[in-house]
């Protein structure tokens, strides 16, 4: 027994010894780590960006393989390849046929189909098809076009918005739609017994909604606001005669079986199975060509993809890794077209640096952090190049976004220099930078928190952690369950946070960036405080000349870029596949518009 142990140990030593390695490069001073233990303030060796750059430089260079064997494609190459043939020109036949069934997918049931109380995205999607709003944006020009309202006027003081409704709109049970429905809906929203806190908050500055006659609605605001018109235009009414029956509004059965006035009629909702809609033959406007739309409820992404490949699902949104790998297979190339677009209601990700903390109060430190996140590397590799780095807080196709601002590059050397300049140096030689703050030595150790399950957030964090370690900063990563995370965020109890914000075509940066929104009262969770930004925001809120407003926001973009309260990350495109049997799919700037689609008779 003892002999065996000795033999084993010997074998171990020999095996390990076989891994010895000798140096082959001639001496180069720049490579040697400082070997002088006597210095009290060691200048931390700046890790070079060489290795990452090599990976990015020539695609394929990192993967040399013996001749004759296909080198596996780099992620960036995979991404580029996946975009080949994407967004094809729409197929239009001489004759357009109505009819057919289109099958789409939800990953979960909506919680409610009541447009007032419903909170989730899928509910909104269904309601968009079942009930029209007063006006709706054009997917290319972003201008509002009439829907339930055929025209509108805005008073010169921007306090009154008058909408003239069409007189030929009927609810799907035959009853005419009138301005009274709009007033009823507004009253319900404002009713504290109705479960609609978000909607109520949205209309908080609306003083009243009145109906001077059957087809006119007037929204009166308490103060002028440049987003006043979009807020009113997107108003979705519910039918008074359906809801006002003495049953509690929140639990009214019409919340699960909506009666709308839009281009599709609700047919049924089988929980966890599917929601079925049929074309509203009495629709006042241009009817869609496809007569039936079914939303299958499939929680699992992989299962959904399988169902698409077997022809059960026609339209599917896919994840980047599915887009690049799975749908590149023959079966998908043969049966599906692929589309990608930056949705006007998309989102962007960011890392927020809490300015209340000693580390991040200094702009130079925040900028250094930005220089340490290899955004381009992540974009090209982890996201397959299917994303854009954003530099500001607006939708990238919005005129408020300034595309001339270039993102700060990944530059660890510059980061080290900035940290040194901000006096964060390793005074005590433990490998972590520190600084005297209020007479006490503070180590640069912080926690990066994000909601558990956010894989990109986690990966970004782990990459950043590695870079920070080399730069002498210690970062702990803390995933938190969503509700707990929200609490910490709201209380401002964090060092660095990563999250995303939803976008819309037009936005008011007030809630996020104005100094009055710091703390419990607003969403300025990183405590960003800048007098010039405040004044720009305030001016823009009441600037009704679009061109001037865009200029103001460009100034705001520049301030954000300089101050780096966030390290802005990416906005990712929506990736969708649509079965080739669906014709006339036009890749608009903002989204795809299912109203234009049709299925030729022989493919129905």
């Amino acid at each position, binding site marked *: 027994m003892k002999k065996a142990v000795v033999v084993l140990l010997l074998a171990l030593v020999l*095996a*390990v010894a076989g*891994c*010895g*390695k*000798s*140096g*082959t*490069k*001639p*001496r*180069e001073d720049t*490579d*040697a*780590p*400082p*070997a002088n*233990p006597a210095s009290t303030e060691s200048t*931390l*060796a700046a*890790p*070079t960006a*060489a*290795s990452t750059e090599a*990976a990015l430089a020539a695609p394929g260079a*990192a993967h040399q393989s013996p001749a004759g064997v296909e080198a*596996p494609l*780099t*992620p960036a190459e995979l991404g580029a390849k996946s975009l080949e043939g994407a967004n094809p020109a729409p197929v239009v036949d001489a004759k357009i046929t109505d009819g057919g069934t289109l099958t789409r997918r939800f990953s979960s049931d909506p919680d409610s189909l009541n447009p007032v109380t419903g909170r989730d995205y899928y509910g909104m999607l269904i309601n968009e098809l079942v009930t029209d709003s007063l006006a709706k944006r054009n997917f290319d020009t972003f201008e509002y076009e009439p829907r339930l309202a055929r025209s509108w006027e805005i008073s010169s003081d921007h306090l009154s918005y008058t909408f003239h409704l069409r007189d030929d709109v009927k609810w799907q049970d035959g009853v005419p739609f009138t301005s009274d429905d709009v007033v009823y809906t507004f009253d319900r929203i404002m009713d504290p017994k109705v479960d609609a806190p978000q909607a109520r908050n949205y209309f908080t500055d609306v003083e009243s909604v009145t109906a001077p006659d059957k087809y006119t609605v007037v929204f009166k605001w308490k103060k002028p606001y440049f987003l006043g018109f979009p807020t009113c235009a997107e108003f979705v009414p519910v039918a008074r005669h359906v809801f006002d029956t003495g049953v509690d509004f929140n639990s009214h059965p019409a919340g699960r079986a909506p009666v709308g006035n839009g281009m599709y009629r609700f047919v049924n909702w089988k929980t966890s199975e599917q929601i079925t809609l049929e074309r509203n033959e009495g629709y006042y406007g241009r009817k869609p060509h496809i007569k039936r739309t079914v939303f299958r409820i499939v929680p699992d992404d*992989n299962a959904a993809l399988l169902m698409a490949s077997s022809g059960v699902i026609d339209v599917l949104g896919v994840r980047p*890794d599915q887009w690049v*790998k*799975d749908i590149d297979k023959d079966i998908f190339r043969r049966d599906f077209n692929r589309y990608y677009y930056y949705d006007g209601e998309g989102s962007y990700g960011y890392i927020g640096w809490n300015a209340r903390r000693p580390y991040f109060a200094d702009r130079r430190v925040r900028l250094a952090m930005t220089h340490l996140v290899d955004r381009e*590397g*992540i974009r090209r*590799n*982890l996201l397959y190049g299917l994303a854009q780095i954003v530099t500001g807080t607006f939708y990238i196709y919005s005129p408020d976004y300034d595309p001339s601002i270039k993102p700060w590059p990944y530059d660890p050397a510059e980061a080290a220099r900035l940290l040194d300049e901000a006096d964060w140096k390793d005074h005590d030689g*433990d*490998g972590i930078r520190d600084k005297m703050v209020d007479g006490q030595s503070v180590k640069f150790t912080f926690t990066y928190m994000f909601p*558990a*399950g956010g*894989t990109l957030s*986690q*990966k970004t*964090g*782990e*990459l950043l*952690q*590695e870079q920070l*370690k*080399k*730069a*002498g900063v210690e970062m*702990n*990563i*803390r*995933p*938190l*369950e969503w509700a*707990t995370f929200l609490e910490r965020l709201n209380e401002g109890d964090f060092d660095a946070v990563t999250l995303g914000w939803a976008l819309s075509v037009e936005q008011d940066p007030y809630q996020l960036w104005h100094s009055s929104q710091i703390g419990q009262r607003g969403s300025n969770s990183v405590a960003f405080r800048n007098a010039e930004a405040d004044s720009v925001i305030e001016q823009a809120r009441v600037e009704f000349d679009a061109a001037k407003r865009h200029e103001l926001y460009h100034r705001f973009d520049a301030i954000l870029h300089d101050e780096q309260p966030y390290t802005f990350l990416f906005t990712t495109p929506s990736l969708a596949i649509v079965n080739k049997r669906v014709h006339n799919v036009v890749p608009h700037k903002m989204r795809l518009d299912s109203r234009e689609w049709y299925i030729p008779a022989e493919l129905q």
Partner: protein
Amino acid sequence: MTDVRPAHRSYWGLVRREFMRRPLAVGALGAVVILVLVAVFAPYLADDAPIILRHNGRIYFPSTFSYREFQTTDWAQFVDRLQVGDWVLMPPVPRGPGTTDIAGFLSRPSREHLCGTDDLGRDVLARMIWGSRISLSVGFVAVGIAVLIGIVLGAVAGYFGGAIDIVISRIIEVVICFPVFFLILIIIALVPKMSIFYLMFAIGIVGWTGVARFVRAEFLKLRGQDFAVAATALGAPALRIIFRHILPNAMAPVLVSATFGVAGAILTESALSFLGFGVPPPTASWGSILSLARQYVYEAWWLTAFPGAAIFMSVLCYNLIGEGLRDAVDPRLKV
């Protein structure tokens, strides 16, 4: 009697001798010992930093000690560009569990990465080796806590019966119905820094009820048996009867339970890290690799295969050890 055996043999000495006579159990114990050694010596098995480094004429041991001049050195690069006159002795797996390589993420097993890479390009074999530290601790400690509490409470309830049994049984019922997830949430919210101790504590604290019920049932059965009654008649104190006489007979289901408990701890840890309650990133654990595997089932089979194999080894080894123990402890099998 011409008995050549030494006159005095301790109880546990007897147990050990019996255990050693079972080759499978001994083999399994050996495997576990190796696993523990792997965990303890992880830095010498998989790391960027060399075990021995000769640089500028001086000898360093970067795996073992932390040197001021090398505090922020990127070892992977350093070893790559070694200068003439220097010499390194690298661990068998020459990369660490935290070294990312985003251009090479999710690559299949190859000469360079024997078990492939994960979603950030980190070497899976290195992460498995370092992950054994977490998985072993969580398994042993969590199950250890659970078994300890379970045996004590179950034995006391089953042996004494009456009011004690009523109270303990009610406690067991309350703990069975406890909202574990919320307990974990509260713990997480209160602690300043997430560490695996909380994880082990949480798993152990709610896992003892099964063991307790088994043990209680066995005690109810065995306390009326002749040998137990005899011991009482002989005046043996209750504690001695419980632990010395009855418990060895009641261990069988406990051992089976403990076996699967340790492997179950890995799976629980996987689920918890998926939700954000596991070891904080970037620490590797078998469970966290498994939770990653969920997203990449079809593309990255190696992410499932290796933790799965680790679970298999754990379950097999602990089960064999458990059975060996049970047989060794069984008084009826003594020659």
